[in-house]
């Protein structure tokens, strides 16, 4: 998740080598300034990943406060007001500060290497969009210390709880989301410009690896959807401070309008968080099964159609808000129609395994765990699509279990698999296998211990976002809390693996994994700061 590129060894070696022939090349600035002013996609990628890991731990601590309170019935640890702040901040930090920047970091690192480009299209913009993030999320975290407390209205910040009845720090919450939104938008523009214009000669759109394809679609989704989020929070700002009533029934507004606008952004957002994961897993499984990805064309086409279909399903988050019957049916049908072509992509990975020659290095372990556990999340998603049944599932822990299964063993495991897969390329060393396996098994057991009982507490009737619960939910929550602490602790093992891997470990050749075929493996490991100065000749091979 966070390869700390050692400041010294690989850079000196690479810049010295490449600078040999060039004219007087001014040495890069030293120390902190170098990271502040870097326009190199590898350094910015590492910055994104380090930032994302730190935020992953902060969001994780908020989650552990929530789980510690829910360990037993009764209020032992926090008052309900602070508990709501913890659930809200956990959601916001994990979605906007941990998962999205992690994928952006992997994109910054790997897209130029996979398409044979020397760097991103707009390097200075790349630096700017990274350094917006620490600003945005320091501001967001500082709202916890403001009078009236931080945001306590859930990461979905429904009006009027988030407008008329919100704490005074809400304006800062809106400012921080604006800044984070701008950072994602600039990142997306950068990625689209790079992929469309800077591929190595000979590499046509159709020869691009799937990770690049999924990120191209994700970038288009980001460009289409982030402005809608910016619009919604601007309307919120005007409702709170300038006396408009977009979402205030008193002035002719409508709180349900907020939910429509938010989820019109919200659902493509969850696809933004899972498509890059599809890309990563589609790179890893063929490598370790030593067999080309099954149905590459179908994967590309299905991902492309998701970019359009994901805009038709948003109101399945609002089945109980009082939609008219026709709208309820419409969104039930569209949700079913889109769930199938997306879900069956899992079968492509499994068929890639069929009659392959499989080995179980750490990246493969995480990719396989992704396939199994993400599919379980997908099945609970199918159950939630049945609108009448959703009247019983909505806003209970069954929904919490669903989206955690698609996000934690889904997006987060895919990010970890990506990091394990590309660490040899970044650092020149293999990650320590023994420790990686410890990390894997602790995480898998921790994730299941935490989120599987939530299916049952949700079905049995436990609503979401409550700081205390009736006695019949006690055992499920006990197990969930234990699992949460176990999963949290096992991420420390991950940090150890990464640090050790950066420092040393078994040397990795350029082609670190026997089955790897993409362009990034033609560059030496550790990847020098400047690669593909002269565009590589690319010969398309069959997908």
């Amino acid at each position: 998740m966070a390869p700390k590129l050692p400041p010294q060894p690989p850079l000196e070696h690479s810049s010295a080598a490449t600078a040999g022939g060039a004219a007087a090349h001014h040495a890069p600035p030293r120390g902190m300034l170098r990271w502040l002013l870097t326009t190199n996609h590898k350094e910015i990628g590492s910055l994104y990943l380090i930032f994302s890991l730190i935020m992953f731990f902060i969001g994780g601590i908020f989650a552990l406060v929530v789980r510690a309170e829910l360990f037993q019935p009764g209020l032992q640890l926090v008052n309900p007001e602070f508990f709501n702040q913890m659930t809200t901040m956990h959601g916001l930090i994990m979605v906007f500060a941990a998962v999205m920047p992690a994928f952006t970091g992997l994109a910054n690192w790997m897209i130029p290497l996979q398409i044979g480009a020397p760097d991103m299209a707009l390097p200075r913009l790349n630096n700017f969009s990274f350094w917006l993030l620490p600003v945005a999320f320091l501001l967001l975290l500082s709202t916890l210390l403001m009078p009236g407390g931080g945001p306590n209205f859930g990461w979905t910040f429904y009006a009027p709880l988030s407008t008329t009845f919100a704490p005074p720090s809400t304006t800062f919450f809106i400012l921080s989301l604006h800044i984070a939104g701008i950072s994602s938008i600039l990142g997306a523009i950068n990625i689209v410009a790079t992929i469309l214009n800077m591929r190595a000669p000979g590499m046509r759109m159709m020869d691009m690896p799937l990770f690049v394809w999924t990120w191209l679609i994700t970038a288009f989704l980001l460009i289409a959807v982030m402005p809608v989020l910016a619009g919604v929070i601007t309307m919120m700002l005007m409702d709170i401070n300038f006396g408009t009533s977009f979402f205030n029934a008193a002035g002719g507004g409508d709180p349900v309008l907020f939910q429509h606008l938010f989820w019109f952004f919200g659902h493509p957002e969850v696809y933004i968080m899972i498509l890059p994961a599809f890309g990563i897993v589609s790179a890893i499984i063929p490598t370790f099964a030593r067999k080309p990805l099954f149905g590459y064309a179908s994967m590309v086409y299905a991902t492309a159609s998701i970019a359009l279909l994901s805009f038709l399903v948003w109101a399945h988050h609002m089945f109980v808000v009082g939609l008219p019957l026709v709208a309820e049916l419409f969104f039930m049908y569209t949700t079913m129609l889109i769930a199938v072509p997306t879900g069956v992509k899992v079968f492509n990975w499994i068929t890639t395994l069929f009659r392959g020659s499989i080995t179980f290095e750490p990246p493969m372990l995480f990719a396989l765990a992704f396939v199994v556990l993400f599919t379980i999340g997908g099945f609970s998603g199918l159950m939630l699509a049945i609108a009448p049944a959703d009247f019983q599932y909505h806003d209970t822990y069954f929904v919490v279990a669903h989206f955690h299964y698609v996000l934690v063993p889904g997006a987060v495991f895919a990010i970890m698999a990506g990091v394990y897969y590309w660490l040899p390329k970044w650092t020149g060393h293999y990650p320590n296998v023994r420790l990686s396996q410890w990390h894997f098994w602790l995480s898998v057991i921790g994730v299941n211990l935490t989120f599987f009982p939530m299916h049952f507490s949700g079905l049995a009737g436990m609503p979401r976002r409550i700081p205390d619960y009736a006695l019949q939910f006690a055992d499920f929550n006990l197990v969930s809390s234990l699992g949460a602490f176990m999963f949290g602790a096992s991420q420390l093992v991950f940090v150890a693996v990464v640090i050790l891997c950066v420092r040393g470990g078994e040397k990795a050749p350029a082609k670190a994994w026997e089955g790897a075929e993409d362009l990034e493996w033609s560059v030496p490991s550790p990847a020098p700061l400047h690669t593909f100065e002269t565009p590589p000749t690319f010969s398309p091979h069959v997908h």
Partner: protein
Amino acid sequence: MWSVIKSVLAAFFGVQKERQRRADFETGRPVVFIAVGVVMTLVLIGLVALVATLAAR
């Protein structure tokens, strides 16, 4: 034009042959595919809305 529509339908369904993919990428221009995709999405909205209104009656 018909082949583009067929390709977009295949994309909605999620299955496509490698040969067809190669042909699509070699001949078609991306903006055409996007335009047809948007139009097909509108058609899909109309269809599903129709089914929903009929079912609601």
